[in-house]
């Protein structure tokens, strides 16, 4: 999608009927994300248990560390046994795993994928680069801290993290969710303006809608 696709334009429908389309209004919702209050105690506990046992992952691999997610998918590690499964699109998943180096361009698209996911959703950041920039800390096109742009639940250190440590990270995420501490989505809604301002700071020619859902 480019900036031009967001302009108002005349479209001819299948019946030959002509109408005007305003993509920002017609294709995207204009409502801000809301903070969801937890359900009543026991019910929320049950929901959190259910959520922790079905993690659907969007492998948003923008760097070298994403290569370690592939062996994790193989029978040697069998992620299904840990109730983890990869999905190809953001609309089917609820855990974006952002990989290793975060070049500023793809990372700017990351929030778009994050916003299109169904809640509740959790962010797992792989590799040292997501924590403090890693070995690319002084690069002109690598962001240093992912948590300024997305609400990160679990960081997995390593350059690159081995599949075993990825599994440990996902297990940690499950524990956090079961304890009711996987509140990244609410954090994102609460500090939405701040996150948006940071995202816009690195992507100067903003050519996406502000609300990606």
């Amino acid at each position, binding site marked *: 999608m480019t900036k031009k696709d967001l302009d108002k334009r005349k479209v001819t429908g299948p019946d030959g009927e002509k109408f005007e389309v305003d993509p920002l209004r017609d294709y995207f919702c204009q409502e801000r994300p809301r903070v969801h209050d937890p359900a009543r105690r026991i019910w929320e506990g049950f929901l959190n248990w259910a959520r922790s046992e079905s993690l659907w992952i969007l492998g948003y691999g923008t760097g070298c560390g994403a290569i370690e997610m592939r062996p994790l998918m193989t029978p040697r590690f069998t992620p299904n046994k840990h109730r983890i499964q990869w999905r190809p699109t953001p609309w089917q998943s609820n855990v974006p795993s952002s990989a290793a180096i975060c070049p*500023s*361009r793809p990372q700017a698209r990351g929030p778009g994928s994050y916003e299109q996911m169904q809640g509740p959703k959790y962010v797992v950041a792989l590799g040292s680069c997501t*924590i*403090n*920039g890693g070995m690319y*800390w*002084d*690069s*002109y*096109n*690598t*962001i*240093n*801290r992912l948590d*300024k742009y997305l609400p990160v639940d679990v960081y997995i250190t390593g350059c690159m993290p081995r599949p075993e440590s990825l599994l440990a990270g996902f297990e940690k995420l499950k524990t956090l969710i079961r304890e009711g501490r996987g509140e990244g989505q609410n954090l994102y809604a609460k500090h939405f303006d701040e996150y948006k301002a*940071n995202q816009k*700071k*690195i*992507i*100067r*020619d903003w050519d996406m809608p502000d609300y990606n859902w």
Partner: protein
Amino acid sequence: MMKALIERLEQKFRISEVVRQRNDELFMTAAKEEAVSLVTYLKEYEGFTHLVLLTAVDWLEAGRFQLTYLLNNNAVKADAGIRVYLDRERPEMESIHHLWKQAATYQRELKEMFGIGFPGSPRVDEPFILEGWRDIPPYRRDFDTKKYSEKTYFPRPGRKTYDPEEYMKKQLYPEE
């Protein structure tokens, strides 16, 4: 083979700094005005039909950019590199996209990363990978990438840097 080629080129063009380290490799410096004719001649008459790469070096101290055209002759398995020096203040070069279409992509990248202009090259002014870049071109050596990173991104405090030599000395020979 290469010796005869050098002699033929020297008759026709003003080339200097000819380096021939191996028999299948040849580097030379051409004058800026003649470089495109030299590349054209090598392509059309000498069989160097393949453009391997077009890249640039920033010689900050000397105040000039160096463009390198690397050509390959597949029939005799030989390479030829042509160096061209450009003024750093107003870097501009003739385009070679009429010889190889893919050169336009190289030139677009050089325009973005070094700020070297190639008038007439297709889509040369469109952003290549740095969309919305407002600073000086990042591959120029006077661009301070660390300062830019600190200004734009959010450095996490607590990072320590050790001098590798000192650090290893302390690790390996602590009593010295």
